[in-house]
């Protein structure tokens, strides 16, 4: 990492924190993601009013209210669509979408696919706890197939969703995985993700201590990727298909042009358009 950067930011992490107190269970990994986000924003020195944090529904999706940025706590699974509309309408804002694995990969799966593909310049942070926390512990797409729960006694029997591989196949331009227990590392990824043009996807393993207490063990099992980020889809596919899902780091950095919104400068006035109807 070379010589430490010396920074003199105008903002510190707590400038991004609102007065609303989280309802998250003490010990929830989402606190770590929150810290990481605040640290990343402070590092980037982004004025809070220039940042919009968009979410759906879930414990993780409560984050916008806890930030001092502009926030949007929408409906379940649709955050990426909201964020897309916002970014296209207001390209100068830094648009972050946050949420959970249920919100993003289950009900929100279609928007995930198409946001990756469309490659609008924004960052998507999924706080993945491999469970539905908010609704009392149902399996999510990333839950292991044999995890026993009330709604799927004996396990779902369904192979877990591979968010990073799907993001790659769908066209995401930046793919990383972090661990909520290491907020500084996550902050680093977020800084890179926000700076990288196009659609950046950061999965953060974030333990649900209430429904998945075994996830406390993640601190022993996650491990940083020893490799530099892949830069071609083929190389990345090699890494992301069949990996162990516990490797952290920036895993792919693509070079696709971000969706420009095709927003052209004004070429014609409304009066001219009206003229076209004149007989």
């Amino acid at each position, binding site marked *: 990492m070379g010589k430490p950067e010396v920074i003199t930011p105008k903002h510190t992490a707590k400038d991004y924190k609102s007065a609303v107190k989280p309802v998250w269970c003490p010990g929830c990994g989402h606190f770590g993601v929150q810290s990481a986000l605040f640290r990343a924003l402070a590092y980037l020195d982004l004025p809070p009013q220039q940042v919009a944090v968009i979410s759906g529904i879930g414990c993780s999706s409560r984050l916008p*209210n806890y930030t001092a940025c502009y926030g*949007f706590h929408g*409906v379940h699974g649709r955050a990426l669509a909201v964020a897309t509309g916002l970014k296209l309408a207001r390209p100068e804002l830094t648009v972050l979408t946050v949420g959970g694995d249920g919100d993003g990969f289950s009900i929100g799966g279609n928007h995930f696919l198409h946001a990756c593909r469309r490659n609008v310049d924004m960052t998507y942070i999924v706080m993945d706890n491999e469970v539905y926390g908010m609704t009392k512990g149902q399996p999510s797409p990333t839950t292991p197939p044999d995890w026993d729960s009330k709604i799927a006694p004996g396990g779902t029997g369904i192979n877990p969703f591979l968010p990073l591989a799907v993001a790659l196949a769908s066209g995401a331009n930046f793919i990383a995985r972090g661990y909520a227990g290491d907020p500084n590392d996550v902050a680093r990824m977020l800084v890179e993700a926000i700076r990288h043009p196009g659609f950046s996807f950061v999965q953060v393993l974030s333990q649900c201590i209430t429904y998945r207490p075994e996830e406390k063990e993640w601190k022993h099992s996650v491990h940083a990727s020893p490799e530099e980020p892949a830069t071609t889809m083929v190389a990345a596919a090699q890494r992301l298909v069949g990996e162990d899902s516990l490797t952290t780091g920036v895993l792919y950095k693509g070079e696709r042009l971000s969706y420009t919104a095709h*927003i*052209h400068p004004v070429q*014609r*006035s409304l009066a001219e358009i*009206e003229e076209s109807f004149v*007989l």
Partner: protein
Amino acid sequence: MNQTIPTAEPITVALMGSGGAGAITAGSLLLEAAGKAGWYGLMTRSVGPQIRGGEALAMVRLAPTPVNGHGDRCDLLLALDWENADRFTDEIFLDADSLIIADTVGEPPPAMLAGGARLVKLPLAQLSKGIPGARPNIIALGLLAGLLGLPNELMASRVAATLGRKGLTSADVAAAIAAGSEAATAIPDPPRLASPAPVNGQRWNISGNEAAALGALQAGVRFAAVYPITPASDLSEWLAVRLQQLGGHLLQAEDEIASINMVLGASYGGVPALTVTSGPGLALMIEALGLAVTAEIPAVVINVMRGGPSTGIPTKSEQADLNIAVYGLHGDAPHLVVAPLSVVDCLPATAWAVQLAEALQCPAIVLSDQLLGQARTICDRPSQPATAEKRLTAAAADRYDRYALTASGVSPMAIPGVPGLQYTAEGLEHSVHGTPSTRARDHLAQLNKRRDKLLQFDYGAAWAESEGEGDTVILTWGSSTAPAREAAAQARAQGLAVKVITLRLLSPTQPTAFAAALAGAGRVLVVEQSHSAQFHAYLRAHYDLPALVSVFNRPGPLPIRPAEVLERLLNWR
């Protein structure tokens, strides 16, 4: 040229053909040429289930005065061929005064002759053979020019302008038109158009869908996210090009849920935004519309109704999405529903809906329908939106409460980027600040606020349109207005005083204005195009109606006809 005396009545011409005969193109060209010549007009179309090469019918009504709907009968049917003509027997009403002109090949279905129409066969295909690039439909246009008294040159120049690209020379066009026009002289006693009045001001040629889109642009819409669906896609397609020209943007989203949520994102960002859809798409947007209500985000959905339920009859019109539009949201979710009442009204009605949505920070549904949206009209230049309501934005403050309780119920809305006003748009029930709350008093305060801002707003006279006076009142909405008005005019001619009230603002309800409009009414006939009389049930639920109420409701796919309404006026039951 023929010598018959032109009638003062509008005349209706049906152009029919199949498999690439070009009936629709011919219809549009007739409309345009007549418009150029000073007539008003309206064209609708009806097609078979095929993507291409299907049977098609263009109905063109022309008159010296504005035309908002079709009448009951067809003066002139021009059949380019008779393939699958059966499909249209329900739509083309021919009587003993009607004239059918057809190619010498083929025979009309008996149903089309049952009314006693006069059939004239002409060698249209034959005539076109001699002229390079000409087709029977161009000959037919010449014929119609001749019959209706449109100058040949005018018709030829319209045809050349439109079809020139397709490799037809001006000379060939002129020859084809002349050939058709010449053939017209052989037809005795054709229906004739009354001469147009001198044209004052601009005339436009516009479809309802284009008018709605233009209205939205006039009211400030600069972002749209849509998902294609019949009969709304042409609106989106028109808009896409113009938004691009105006520095805005239209995005085709992955589905309707994405579209409406993108609209909410853009609007939250301060840019007036809309989406366009039809029944099945509206059904998918319901959840997000509830979010717009709760989080108080302006948003507009133009819903161009088609036959339902489910996938239903996508190419045909029906007024059966009223229920979902006014009642479809879960929870107590007051919002705006505006319905244009004519093709031209699609413009100001949509502009108004955008303004109301912006001013009231609330979603607005514009209930147009296939009949209005896909009809094309020659009309006077539509009026600009009457009002210019705008979004109330927030200025810097010590403490910003996004959902502050104000006298009007409207709270200033912060636009991202402005320092010091950061807040979270919230779909959970919330305090004035926007923090989630489950408290009874917060819930009640916000429910009251969201209702009262709509109820307290002064909608002015635009909430409804009234025509005529009388003890008998027709209550109607949307595309049923034209046949209702035409029936009322006919009833008046027969000595029955009828007033027609059309509601433009369907939600929120306007009990006071309604009572005033209905004051003195002895009896009411409700007219609507739905199977379950949705409009009537809605009126009953929210308004006081006189004791004598009769309901004329009929589902699609056929448009309501003036005669059906007149019959109900004359034989009250």
